[in-house]
């Protein structure tokens, strides 16, 4: 068979159509395309791709099963290592992980590992039939997991498989963390997230929602109340603001609020769902990461006529994934680059009407290696906007760090934890995911959950 140099294309919902709905943009491979894409894999003896996978998915093995048409076998193979494959197949930045290392990528495009993972996972969602993970005999040990994002869910699933009794405590009314409240429905359908969480519950994991650790019980109290170890995966949920005048005007949202209203609370179905959200006619999203792209694309779907990405640096420095930027462009999101607001202006009712912007030019590279943006004097201008969404990044959720006696933190307020084990300075207390690393990715959070589960198991066996 001659080697096909490029990845089989992912079928997408047409851009003109998709900005009118919240259903998924990427439609997924069909069987024929999946098998054809799988056939591009060389089944390497020393698979480079696996070096890029934080949860050690046996990539060539599951791809070989897809080649043979054994899709159930493929998903079972993935599930030995990854408990959220339908999620990862959709939102992982494969281009900087497994696919970055793939040998086929040297002379052409790498194998579409993520798309194949998604195919296998979706096959199971439609046809069922995956084996529930193997569970070891009960150890009688109790572990508390704080936060039900990808870090917490992975740690919980793995610990349950190891035979421990696991309870997850989640502040919100549903489990999933950013997967539920942040990442939009059109990239990651919420039903899929919940189905995967159900599978984790089937392993015996108990999830207590509406349970805020630090308010109801502290981490110390969990240990006193009989948990043998605690894993903290509370994420990076604290939104940053700019501290410029007018920031508290009506119409200035943090991306967290804008996306939570829309995704978690389903404001896009208002008034059938009671939570409102406003996008107005003209929206400006400040920032150019993935969260910014998600916000700008969400604004269009909520009915905004114009949606802008406003960013201090140039196109080259935009931190969002290439694919996200392309999808945003296709949908008509506009880019005001080398631009940043200096002030938000409002009317007598305190509603946002415009923002004063200043233009920037790129100067010398800074510590991060990116060119430092320098404001151009006298370049101020006014941009009319109805809504602004600030997507400037998030800091660590403060409640647990604030209420856990003697827990060591980093300068930025993240929990200081061992990279390999997640161990903190407090015996029996482990941490991982965004609360340790700062805002990162789903798969890194899952990797941290996995490593911590192993370390917790060791800790409990030696206790």
């Amino acid at each position, binding site marked *: 068979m001659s080697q096909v140099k490029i990845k089989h294309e992912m079928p997408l919902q047409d851009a003109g159509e998709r900005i009118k709905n919240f259903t998924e943009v990427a439609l997924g491979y069909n069987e024929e395309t999946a098998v054809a894409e799988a056939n591009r894999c060389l089944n390497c003896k020393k698979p480079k791709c696996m070096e890029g996978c934080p949860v050690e998915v046996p990539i060539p093995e599951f791809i070989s099963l897809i080649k043979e048409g054994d899709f159930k076998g493929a998903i079972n193979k993935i599930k030995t290592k990854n408990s959220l494959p339908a999620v990862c197949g959709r939102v992982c930045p494969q281009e900087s992980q497994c696919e970055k290392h793939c040998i086929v990528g040297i002379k052409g495009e790498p194998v579409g590992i993520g798309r194949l993972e998604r195919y296998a996972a979706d096959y199971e969602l439609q046809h069922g039939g995956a084996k529930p993970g193997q569970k070891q005999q009960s150890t009688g040990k109790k572990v508390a997991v704080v936060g039900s994002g990808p870090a917490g869910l992975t740690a919980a699933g793995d610990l349950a498989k190891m035979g421990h009794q696991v309870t997850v405590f989640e*502040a*919100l*009314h549903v489990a999933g963390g950013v997967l539920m409240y942040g990442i939009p429905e059109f990239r990651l359908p919420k039903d899929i997230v919940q189905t995967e969480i159900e599978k984790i519950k089937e392993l015996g994991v108990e999830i207590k*929602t*509406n*349970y*805020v650790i630090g*308010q*109801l*019980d502290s981490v110390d109290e969990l240990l006193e109340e009989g948990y043998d170890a605690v894993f903290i995966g509370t994420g990076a*949920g*604290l*939104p940053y*603001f700019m*501290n410029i005048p007018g*920031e*508290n005007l*009506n*119409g200035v*949202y*943090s991306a*967290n*609020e804008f996306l*939570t*209203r829309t995704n978690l*609370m*389903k404001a896009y*179905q*208002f*008034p*059938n*769902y*009671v*939570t*409102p959200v*406003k996008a107005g006619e003209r929206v400006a999203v400040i920032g150019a990461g993935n969260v910014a792209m998600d916000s700008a694309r969400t604004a269009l779907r909520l009915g905004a006529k114009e949606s802008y990405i406003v960013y201090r640096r140039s196109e080259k420095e935009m931190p969002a994934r290439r694919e996200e930027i392309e999808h945003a462009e296709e949908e008509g999101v506009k880019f005001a680059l080398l631009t940043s607001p200096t002030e938000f202006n409002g009317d007598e*009712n*305190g*509603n946002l009407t415009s923002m004063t912007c200043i233009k920037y030019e790129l100067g010398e590279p800074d510590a991060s290696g990116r060119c430092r943006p320098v404001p151009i004097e006298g370049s101020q201008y006014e941009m009319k906007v109805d809504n602004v969404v600030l997507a400037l990044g998030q800091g660590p*959720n*403060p*409640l647990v760090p604030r209420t856990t006696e003697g827990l060591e933190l980093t300068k930025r307020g993240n929990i200081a934890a061992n990279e390999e084990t997640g161990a903190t300075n407090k015996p029996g207390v482990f941490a991982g995911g965004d609360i340790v690393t700062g805002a990162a990715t789903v798969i890194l959070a899952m990797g941290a959950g996995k490593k911590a589960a192993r370390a917790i198991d060791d800790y409990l066996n030696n206790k």
Partner: protein
Amino acid sequence: MYKIVRKEDFSSVTKLFEVEAPKIAAKGKAGQFFILRVDEKGERIPLTIADYNPEAGTITTIFQEVGRTSKDLGKLEAGDYLVDVVGPLGESTEIENYGRVICVGGGVGVAPIYPIAKALKEAGNEVISIIGARNKELLFWEEKMASVSDKLIVCTDDGSYGQKGFVTDAVKQVADEMEINKLWAIGPMPMMRAMAATTKPLGIETIVSLNPIMVDGTGMCGACRVSVGGETKFACVDGPEFDGHQVDFDLAMRRLAYYKDEEKRAEAATTCGCGGGCGCHK
């Protein structure tokens, strides 16, 4: 699911619920609040906890029917369930023996001021409570307040009960006669603003409890931003109590009004019966 074990109608729009939430009842303290959702399609709204019963495992809250969610809530009866109750949220009141204190509750604000007055009394303070409402019909918990106060003054705007006039007038009278070490005022935003304006020249430290729009209640969204002494604070984790002399009430009131139009649409959606699907009230 969280069971409503008792409902009391104080007036056509003021209702009391006692809800089963054993953990919150055991852990909650004066000044804290909780967030609830009425049903699967509901929004998350914060309500202050008006009383705790750790033995029965219940918390009590009092609310006024103003918009869609509080009206949906008002339709529930004892025996019904709320899908979500999460709390206790926010910082609790700083309870100490300050000496002589005033606790002011205006309108439904009587509910959240009760546990504060109670805790202050238990801490040894001389508690003077002042409660007020527009008219007699809207007053509630007079006896309960009296039971935790050394002195209770009741005011109505129209004079239909107690002393005629505003709670601010009553505070001025009391402060004229004796030294006051600290004051708490909870009620509608204009009442708290007026109270802060009254006590500032009198030099009485004044704590108010803010009730901005919230989503998560854990510091994750910033919907609850308020400005205190020129600094932005998240009411759900930094508050809800703040120094009344430092709060930007105008900003807080404007932010509360942001979804007025949507409130109307959400309410209309319940009256035509289409559930929002027909588009008649878009």
